[in-house]
C-alpha cells in the first residue's frame, strides 16, 4: 500500500513501533485516510480526539479477580491518574469506558448489556482477562458466556488471568490510540463494525 497516513496512532508515552500487533489500527488509519478530511474539520477533529483520548473515565464492572488488579492500577504504585484515567464513575451515564473485569455468566449477561446501553455515546469497551475474552478456564461451564463480544462490541482485549497492571496500561493506551484514530465529526455509525475489526476477529477465532 502506498497510502500516506494523515496521522499515525501515537500516544505521548509510547512510540508507534513499541506497540505490537497493530495491524488493525493501521488498517483503520488507512481507511480513515482514504477519504481525506478538510483542514478545519480535520484539525478540530484532532483537538476533540486529543481531549477524548486523554480523559477516559471508566466504569469498572468488576465481577472477580481482574477487578483487584484494576484497583491496584488505581493505587499509588501504578497510579493510572497520570495518563488521564483519573476518574472512575460509578454511574454508567457518566462513563466513557466499560471495563469488564471478570467472568460474565448467564445471570450477569443481561446486566452487562443493560449497562452498555445505559452509557452515553461515545462509549468503549475493554474486555479484561481470559474469562471475558473467551470464557477462559471456565469455557466449558454451563453458566459462563464464552466471550463478551457475543453481547457487546469490544474495542480492546487484554489477555491474562488476571493481567498485570502493566498489561492493563498497555491495553488502555491502545484504546487511547484507537480514539485518536477515529473520526469524531461526520463519522459513520459507530455500531457498524468497521472492516478491520471484522477481519481481526476472524483471525482471533
Amino acid at each position, binding site marked *: 500500500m502506498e497510502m500516506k497516513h494523515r496521522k499515525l496512532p501515537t500516544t505521548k508515552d509510547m512510540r508507534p513501533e513499541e506497540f505490537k500487533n497493530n495491524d488493525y489500527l493501521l488498517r483503520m488509519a488507512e481507511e480513515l485516510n482514504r477519504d481525506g478530511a478538510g483542514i478545519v474539520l480535520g484539525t478540530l477533529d484532532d483537538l476533540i480526539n486529543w481531549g477524548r483520548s486523554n480523559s477516559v473515565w471508566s466504569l469498572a464492572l468488576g465481577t472477580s479477580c481482574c477487578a483487584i488488579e484494576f484497583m491496584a492500577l488505581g493505587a499509588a504504585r501504578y497510579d493510572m491518574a497520570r495518563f488521564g484515567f483519573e476518574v472512575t464513575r460509578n454511574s454508567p451515564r*457518566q462513563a466513557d469506558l466499560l471495563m469488564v473485569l471478570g467472568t460474565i455468566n448467564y445471570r450477569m449477561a443481561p446486566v452487562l448489556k443493560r449497562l452498555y446501553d445505559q452509557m*452515553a455515546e461515545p462509549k468503549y469497551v475493554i474486555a479484561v482477562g481470559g474469562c471475558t475474552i473467551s470464557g477462559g478456564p471456565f469455557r466449558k461451564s454451563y453458566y459462563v458466556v464464552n466471550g463478551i463480544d457475543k453481547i457487546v462490541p469490544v474495542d480492546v482485549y487484554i489477555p491474562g488471568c488476571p493481567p498485570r497492571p502493566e498489561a492493563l496500561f498497555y491495553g488502555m493506551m491502545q484504546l487511547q490510540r484507537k480514539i485518536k484514530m477515529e473520526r469524531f465529526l461526520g463519522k459513520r455509525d459507530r455500531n457498524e463494525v468497521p472492516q478491520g475489526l471484522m477481519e481481526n476477529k476472524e483471525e482471533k477465532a
Partner: protein
Amino acid sequence: MEQSFLDYYSLEPLTRWLHDALCGVMPEGWAVFLESLLLGVVILLAYAVLAVVLIYMERRVCGAFQCRIGPNRVGGKGGLLQVPADVLKILTKEIIRLKNSDHVLYELAPYLVILASVISFSCLPWNKGMEAIDMQVGIFFVLAASSIGIIGILLAGWSSNSKYTAIGAVRSGAMLVSYELSLGITVLTVVILSGTMSISGIVESQADGWNIFKGHIITLVAFVIYLISGNAEANRGPFDLAEAEQELTAGYHTEYSGMHFGFFYLAEYLNLFITSGIATTLFLGGWMPLHVAGLDGFNAAMDYIPGIVWFLGKTFFVVFLLMWIRWTYPRLRIDQVLNLEWKYLMPLSLLLMLVMAVLKVCGLVF
C-alpha cells in the same frame, strides 16, 4: 497614607471612565446594557477558568495526600492540560434523555444549580472597586441566591425517576436546609460586628484588622462553624451524602450525562470556591492586606501587593483547608450529620450571635 496604595489598585476609575465613555456615544440605558453584557462575559470566563484551576488543584492535592503523583502526562510535565482535556471530552459527550422522567424539570435542574452558583460567584469582592454586584444587603443576597441550588438538586433527584437519585435528593434537601441555619447565623454574627450587610462594607470595616482577630474568640469559633456548614453546603466530604458514591453510585446526578453532569461537577467546585471566598470576605478581611500593629514597614510592604492577590491567596488557602478535610475523613451518616447541626452547631452559633450582640452594644470589640 496607606489608603493611597489600596486606591492605586482600585478598578473604580477604570469602570467610571468606561461608563462615561460609553455614555458619551449612546444613551445611558444602552451603556448599562452593554456594560452588563461585558461583565457577564467576564464573569463566565472567570468562572470557567477558576473551575479548571480548582479541579486541577483538587487532583494534585489529593494525589499528594494519597502518596501518588496524580495527572502528570497530559500536556507537559505537570499534567496542566488534563482538565481542559476533560472539558473537551465532556462537551462532546451525548446528553441522555430519559424515557420516563419529567423532561422539563429534568433538564431545568442542572441550569438551576449552575445559575445559583454563578449568581453567588458574581457577588464576590475581588478587589477594591471590583465587586460586580454590590448592594446594601449583599451578603443576604448571596445566601438567598445560593439556596436556589438546593432546588436544583432536589429537582434533579426527583425528576430522574430513580430510587438512588431520590434518596440522594432527600438527603441533600434535609442536610442543606439544616446547615443553612448555622451558616446564616454565623454570617449574622459578622454582620453585627461589622455593622453592615453590604459586602464591600464588610471588607472596608476590616481595614483596621480582620474580623477573625477583632471579635475575640467568638469570631474564631464562628469561622470554624462557618467552615463546617459551608463545607456541608458545598456538598463535599465528609458531608457528601447527597452524592455518596459508595452508597448511591452518584447520588442525585446518577442519571445525568454529558454537559448536564458537567454542570453539577463544575458547580461543586465553584461552590467550594464561593464558600471559601465568602469565608475570606467575612473573616479574613477580603482583599485587605495583612497588617500587624506596630510594624509600619511590614504593613507598607504588604500594601504593595494588589488586593486581588490577597483575596485569591486567602481564598485558595481556605480551599486547601477544605480539601485537606475532604481527603482525610470518612463520610458521616445522615443522622449524625443532622445531630451535629441541630444539637451542636445551631445552638452554639445562636449563642455566639447573642454574645457578639452584647459585646457590640457594650462596645467591647476592637
